[in-house]
């Protein structure tokens, strides 16, 4: 769906928002539509993406990993090499530039793993704006390194102690801030979630991933046979998938199965959720029998979210994309495997996609190609992985 004028992907999406935010959302949509195809805006964004963030990112043939799996050729779309260490900068540069055009002086954001917070802080630093970032208290501890980075970049980090103290609560708190400071503030949402037009806008800014894959694969042979990305809110995944949905590629999104889909400890919204309304959108959610949002778990803070972008809900129901999941244990295996075979330390979020790629590669033909979006690098996660290993290797 190119641009959903009614704000919906099929039945999903919409804008379920407090009335105070309506003028702000309308102003945002108006400006996004005005600038998205504007030549000067595009040129400026393109400049920052290339010269500042480091685009295009390589499509790297992971020969060692492919041979280890013994099947299809695995290619890694190296978003981990971007400035900041994740795909998040594609979106923050786009939105921060837009905010600047809209004369907004104050930027707020939420963050889970801290990567979106860091990318926001960077974009705001380089464009000369002030930023404040809401982050679940639990995440400030497990992704402490990113809290230090945000502070040093000049962002003010607000630890959020309400609810489950993770990403969903950080979004709640950012929305409350926005309601309070609606005139002066731009809310720079970090994933393809929230009320329209955020899901489509974030998708558009992230689609540079899939566009580049298309061009890069053409040089190698043809369009990829299989495309894989991890899904939290779903921004790196939709940015990868959207330009490829019209091809014949098999597309797979990978959610966090945590301690298993049968346990209560996972974040696999599309695999195990039901429809509902949260954070301004109608989409699949993890909720109890009365519509209360349930607490989620994932070893990766960036996937620890009970909702998912509405376009993914649409792609699931229309069966264009398959949504699978990887457990914490599989993710650790994949993390170590990629680290040791290729010398690439992936973010735990991205390691979900690697885990799926390893499973798929084993079952596919040598002539086939798999493209995996490596959404971020794993420096932020080495302490968490170390902790996991010391706890689990004992038994």
């Amino acid at each position, binding site marked *: 769906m190119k641009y959903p004028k009614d*704000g919906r992907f099929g039945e999903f999406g*919409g*804008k*379920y*928002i*407090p*009335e*105070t935010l*309506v*003028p702000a959302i309308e102003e945002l949509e108006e400006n996004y539509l005005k600038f998205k195809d504007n030549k000067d805006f595009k040129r400026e964004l393109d400049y920052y993406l290339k010269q500042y963030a480091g685009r295009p990112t390589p499509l790297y043939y992971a020969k060692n990993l492919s041979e280890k799996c013994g099947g299809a050729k695995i290619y890694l779309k190296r978003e981990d090499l971007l400035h900041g260490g994740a795909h998040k900068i594609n979106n923050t540069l786009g939105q921060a530039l837009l905010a600047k055009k809209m004369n907004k002086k104050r930027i707020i954001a939420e963050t889970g793993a801290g990567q979106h917070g860091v990318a926001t802080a960077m974009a705001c630093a380089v464009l000369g704006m002030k930023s404040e970032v809401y982050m679940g208290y639990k995440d400030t501890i497990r992704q402490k390194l990113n809290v230090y980075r945000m502070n040093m970049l000049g962002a003010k980090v607000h630890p959020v102690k*309400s*609810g489950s103290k993770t990403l*969903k*609560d950080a979004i*709640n708190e950012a*929305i*409350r801030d926005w*309601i*309070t*400071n*609606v*005139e002066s503030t731009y809310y720079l949402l970090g994933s393809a979630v929230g009320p329209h037009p955020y899901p489509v806008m974030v998708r558009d800014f992230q689609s540079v991933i899939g566009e580049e894959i298309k061009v890069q694969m053409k040089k190698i042979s043809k369009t990829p046979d299989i495309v894989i990305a991890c899904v939290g809110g779903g921004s790196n995944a939709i940015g990868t998938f959207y330009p490829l949905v019209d091809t014949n590629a098999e597309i797979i999104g990978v959610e966090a199965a945590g301690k298993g889909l049968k346990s209560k400890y996972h974040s696999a919204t599309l695999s195990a959720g*039901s*429809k*509902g*309304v*949260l*954070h*301004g959108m*109608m989409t699949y*959610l993890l*909720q109890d029998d*009365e*519509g*209360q*949002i*349930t607490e989620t778990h994932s070893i990766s803070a960036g996937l620890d979210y009970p909702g998912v972008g509405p376009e993914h809900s649409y792609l699931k129901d229309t069966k264009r994309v398959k949504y699978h999941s990887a457990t914490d244990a599989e993710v650790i295996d994949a993390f170590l495997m990629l680290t040791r075979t290729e010398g690439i330390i992936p973010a735990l979020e991205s390691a979900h996609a690697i885990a799926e790629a390893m499973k798929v590669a084993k079952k596919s033909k040598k002539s086939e190609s798999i493209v995996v979006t490596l959404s971020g690098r794993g420096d932020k996660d080495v302490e968490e992985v170390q902790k996991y290993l010391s706890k689990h290797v004992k038994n």
Partner: protein
Amino acid sequence: MSRIKEKFVELSAKKEKALIAYIMVGYPNENATISAVRGLIKGGADIIELGFPFSDPLADGPIIQNASTVSLDNGTKLNKFFNIVKKIRKETDMPLILMTYTNILYHKGYSKFIAEAKNAGIDGFILPDMSIEESKEYLASAKNAVDTIFLISPNTTKSRIERIAKLSSGFLYLVAVYGTTGVKIGIQNYTLNAIKEVKKITKGKIPVGVGFGVSTPEDVKKYIKAGADAVIVGSAFLKLIEKTPQNKLESSIATFTKSLKRQTIQT
């Protein structure tokens, strides 16, 4: 005529404005809810808003957030909630409004939820995250059964206020300030102007209630003077409930309610 409409007609005949009180059901427990409601009745509240907790109350400030968490932790489920509503309904004929978030209705199905609520004695709904654009099914389900009270804000445009007023029944809820529930930033000029403006636009076709941050008799007096047909007080009641022992709850709530209600009676 709905109970809410009747109430406004009755008050207008007496030259009174409405005091609407909000409490979170199950905070801190069922007994406290019943005592608080009795205090509200005794103190002369005109309409009661009963909050059903939602895990992610994004329009609420810390006080109602905390009340939601406590209520959910104490096991407030819909069955229990509706049973409490039924108990309250046996004690009073005053209008009861259910305030919660969209997902709670969506999850059960708007029609089913509204039918159950009405059966328990609920007269209307307030859903702070329900925008008119998404309200088709909700409105269809509520039609001829319960009132749908939509919110407007000081930054809502004139044409939008007109559209929202058309879809609202019972009253129109003007959010007093930029912020979440329970904010304490004092009376703002933009709020007083907004009240006048909204009254002008709605031309008396629907009562206008003002809420968010209204907490003292002085606040009530100023909003009524500016032209509000109703004031809604919430967080201030929850604060009082929090600090008052159960055996004094009914009388303290009654006393506080009286002090607020007095300001809605024109002399």
